[in-house]
């Protein structure tokens, strides 16, 4: 019984130490950040991160956090449409800040020191692309309609 108690106390001590010194954002956010591109107009637009194709909208993916630099560019492109550009900006995550404070401030120091408290603004990217030349696109659509008839 004595041994089991010791093991239990040891386990609780170890887990609370790990939790305290590893901190909320550092534990729960991991080494990756989320890019979530919502369904927009037009459909199936291509999404590029700093010039590299990462998917076709809509999609949600996790990328290594160092790939999302402060000021990285996420571009949504589609032929015949103007490219939409999002600049990656990180800001403190309120929920993590509150959780860290109630865990005793030290976790906040760890999260701030590692930069993990700063979350990128890529969790909900919405896009609506403007046609490059609306008249030309409308003409093309009409021509298609006539072809169908």
């Amino acid at each position, binding site marked *: 019984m004595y041994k089991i108690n010791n093991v239990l106390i040891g386990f609780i001590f170890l887990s609370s130490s790990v939790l305290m010194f590893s901190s909320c954002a550092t534990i729960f956010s991991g080494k990756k950040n989320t890019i979530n591109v919502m369904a927009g107009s037009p459909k199936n637009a291509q999404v590029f991160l700093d*010039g590299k194709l990462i998917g076709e909208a809509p999609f949600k993916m996790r990328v290594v956090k*160092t790939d999302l630099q402060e000021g990285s560019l996420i571009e949504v492109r589609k032929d015949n449409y103007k490219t939409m550009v999002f600049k990656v900006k990180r800001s403190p995550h309120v929920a993590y800040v509150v959780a860290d404070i109630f865990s005793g401030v030290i976790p906040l120091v760890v999260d*701030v020191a590692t*930069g993990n408290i700063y979350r990128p603004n890529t969790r909900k990217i919405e896009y609506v692309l403007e046609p490059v030349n609306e008249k030309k696109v409308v003409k093309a659509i009409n021509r298609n309609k006539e072809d169908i008839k």
Partner: protein
Amino acid sequence: MRKYKLLLGLLLVVNTLMAQDYSQLLKENREQKNYGFFNVVDVKYHQGRFMKNSGSLNNIMDNPYTAYNFRVGFQSDGSKQKWDQLYGFPVYGVGFYSAYFDGGELGSPQALYMFMRAPVFRGRKMSWNWELSAGVSYGFEQYNPNTNPDQQIIGSSVNVYFNAGTGISYQFGKRWDLTLDLDMTHFSNGSTRTPNIGVNLAGLAFGGRYNFNPVRNYTKKKDDGYRPQTRAAFIRKDMPKYLRHLELILFGSIGGKTTTTQIYDGPTYFISTASIDLAWCYHHVGKVGIGFDGFYESALRDYPVKIENVEFGDLSYAGIHIAHYLRMYRLTLVTQLGFNLSPHVNHKGNNYIQVGGSYNITDNFFARAALKTRNGAVADFIEWGLGYRIPFAYSH
């Protein structure tokens, strides 16, 4: 086959050129001012004396106290809010406070709080700052008639923590600051439990502050040679002209209080306040006003004398006040100095103070929590309320 090889080669060259474009762009970003996040961690060691306000616990109150503070802060640079510039680019943050009192009856409180530090004067290396902190403290050994009867200072283990200070800081190298502050700390519960004489401390705090920019955790993989700036450069913008105006402020609140004669397990009485203020808004950050207060306090049926067949007039009283409002973002620090108009509450003294914080829910609608005192600065009750502001008479 040769054609395909040529095409593949061309694609590779285009990709490399594009990647270079983007890495050049990121490099340019990094070279811009204020790239990254500007944070500070500071540690302070406090030593000082109790500001005695009662004859009890002399064995503790006659001795010095020691305390330490551990804080994390975010340095504003003015890029987001005009308020940063108006207050001289303050640091906001959260902290942990722990005090040691020599003697067991009072306990040794700890506190979690939010703080703001802003400069009065900022030189090249040295600055003179003011600081305000507010939060929740815990760890007091509360009054108990059976187990802790000598402690007649504070009736609850969880109390409000409030600290105000001013001091100098000196930049010591690229990352370090040394700080020396004179500060006052106050703990009380706003008479939600009696006794509530409160604990007041005054002392000196010596500390060190470390400035850092954690953006390198993101950049080092891409550009190991890059070293980010550790101190923010302040971005100053043209302020929009402030249109001075008048404002009518309507406010109503409720709360609870205990009385000083029914300590420890006395009932909690209902209180309510209604007030109307006329304020002159003279600047983005401030306004001054005068106002009228109407109070309803059910404790008056039992204290200072028990009233039989109580009427509304016996439980209500009035006052007038002068006020100052200091605004930042959606928060406002409210300070009011009031004067009693009702003779039947003479036991409360001639004047009272109300200190509180309000939060602007919309442009006109706000919520406020405030502490009202009696006999000058003795806590009377804490009130929670809602209010509405009506601006008019804009000057052009």
